[in-house]
């Protein structure tokens, strides 16, 4: 969603700063994640002196993030929201840090804000990068995974013939392929694919294509066991040297959400569109 930044200009992020500048407060709060804790436990777990912990507990209590009953410290509902959001921001920053080569130098406009906010879902994903002794490594590895996939959903802003061949193989092997393409890529895709095969697979329903009105700025392929993400450089050139690859459920969910986002923006190639496509191919 759109957030009114002026609101945040006037209000400095005091609560996150309150945690960021104090390891004591942060560690106490994180310790309460799995239940109430006694002072001795907090002291042993954090390695911080009791008096410092007591001071930190008082500060957290003033914020109403925790309550103290006897020797135990409990998190409040308010504190739980803060704690879980602290964990979320830590996971996001860790993801960005681990994959900084990927996030630093690319155009991220193709990733909707909602999914940028959930970037921590890609925390277990890894970079597949070009190696000097094998310049094609990312692409080869990706094609290998693609060839072994049964069904895929893909957002494709670029079209390579070896890639199209791999998609064709999935279809020939009886798999299902759902594609989001822009107009230019659709034309290239039809040219590279055997055109009568495109129609055949579309007619039987194993190939579904949605066409989006604007140029795509992100590449994403999701199968049953991997989700890959490719981006453009700021200068508009697609980066073939680096891919982000994930295999866990959260990466797959993230990739599927990206696919769904573009599917909602696209128009499905229906029978009329297929006929128009047929006549264009004949010309």
């Amino acid at each position, binding site marked *: 969603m759109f957030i009114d930044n002026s609101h945040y200009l006037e209000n400095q*992020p005091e609560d996150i700063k309150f945690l960021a500048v104090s390891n004591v407060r942060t560690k106490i709060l994180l310790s309460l994640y799995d239940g109430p804790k006694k002072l001795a436990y907090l002291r042993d777990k954090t390695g911080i002196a009791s008096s410092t912990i007591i001071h930190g507990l008082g500060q957290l209590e003033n914020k109403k993030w925790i309550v103290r009953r006897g020797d135990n410290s409990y998190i409040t509902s308010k504190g739980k929201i803060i704690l879980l959001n602290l964990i979320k921001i830590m996971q996001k920053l860790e993801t*960005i840090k681990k994959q900084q080569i990927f996030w630093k130098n690319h155009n991220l406009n193709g990733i909707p804000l909602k999914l940028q906010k959930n970037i921590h879902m890609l925390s277990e994903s890894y970079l597949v990068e070009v190696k000097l002794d094998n310049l094609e490594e990312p692409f080869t590895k990706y094609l290998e995974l693609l060839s072994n996939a049964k069904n895929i959903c893909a957002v494709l802003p670029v079209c390579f013939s070896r890639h199209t061949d791999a998609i064709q193989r999935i279809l020939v092997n009886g798999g299902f392929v759902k594609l989001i393409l822009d107009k230019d890529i659709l034309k290239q895709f039809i040219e590279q694919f055997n055109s009568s095969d495109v129609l055949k697979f579309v007619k039987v329903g194993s190939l579904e294509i949605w066409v989006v009105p604007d140029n795509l700025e992100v590449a994403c392929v999701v199968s049953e066991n991997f989700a890959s993400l490719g981006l453009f450089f700021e200068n508009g050139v697609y980066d073939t040297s680096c891919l982000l690859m994930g295999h866990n459920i959260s990466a797959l969910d993230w990739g599927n959400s990206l696919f769904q986002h573009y599917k909602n923006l696209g128009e499905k190639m229906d029978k009329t569109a297929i006929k128009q496509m047929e006549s264009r191919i004949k010309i």
Partner: protein
Amino acid sequence: MRNLFELHDQIQDDLKFMVKSKIRLKIMFSLLEGPKSMKEINETQNLSFATISNNMKRLVEENLVKKVENTFEITSFCKLKLDSIIDFQQSTTFSNRFEDLLLDHDISGIPDFLIQDMGVFFDSELVQSIPVDIYKTHNTFINLLSESKEIFGVSPISHPDYTVLFQDLIKTDVKSCLILTDDIIKRTVTTADLKTLTGSITNKNLELRRYSADLKIAFTVADNFVSLGFFSDDGTYDQNRDLVSKNKDAIDWTKRLFDYYYQMSEKVGITNLAKILVS
């Protein structure tokens, strides 16, 4: 859950750098509106050229800002990091605004992955019954519901009006799905007439589902609003306060919460209804 201290060690310097300096934050948020020259930042943010220059140097070094001709722009990388701070800020705005509600109410009916996103309720309204209008919460709910085209509800509570509403729902084209506890199913069934009961099970627009465990939250999400009701910390349901929002993100959030309970519930048919009634 992995070791949270290790996670914290990994990112603490990054987090500190992003939020510690008010000046850097001012510059970054200012550039979030669009590229600006030093002069523009100086004029709009009331910062001296020396201050801007020193801080800008650090921001460029960290790849958070880049210089394009005479203007400065924030990088996508910086936007990503700022966005995570804005997201956190939205949650604190929510938790501070509704502190009174949160401090003595139970939110254990909401799974952690959704508590993380509760900031979407930052602009919601706490509808409270007041002495001159003791039915305000209930009436607001009924009024909002009358305009809905699709209704999804999860409820461990009952009200005579709900049975009437239930009977009305079956007659309309409103698509609805209700997840109820066994007690509420029994109560609804015994207060509704036989025709309504048969109608509810065979009706295509209404799906009745059973949640057999203890429910710690009551909520309704429709196409036009969402209403959340909570239990007090003493275990009683607080019928005098509802958190109500018409924000699209809050509606989407509650649909995710509904899906969560949907996965853990089962459809009520003739066979299990009989079982519920004799249980």
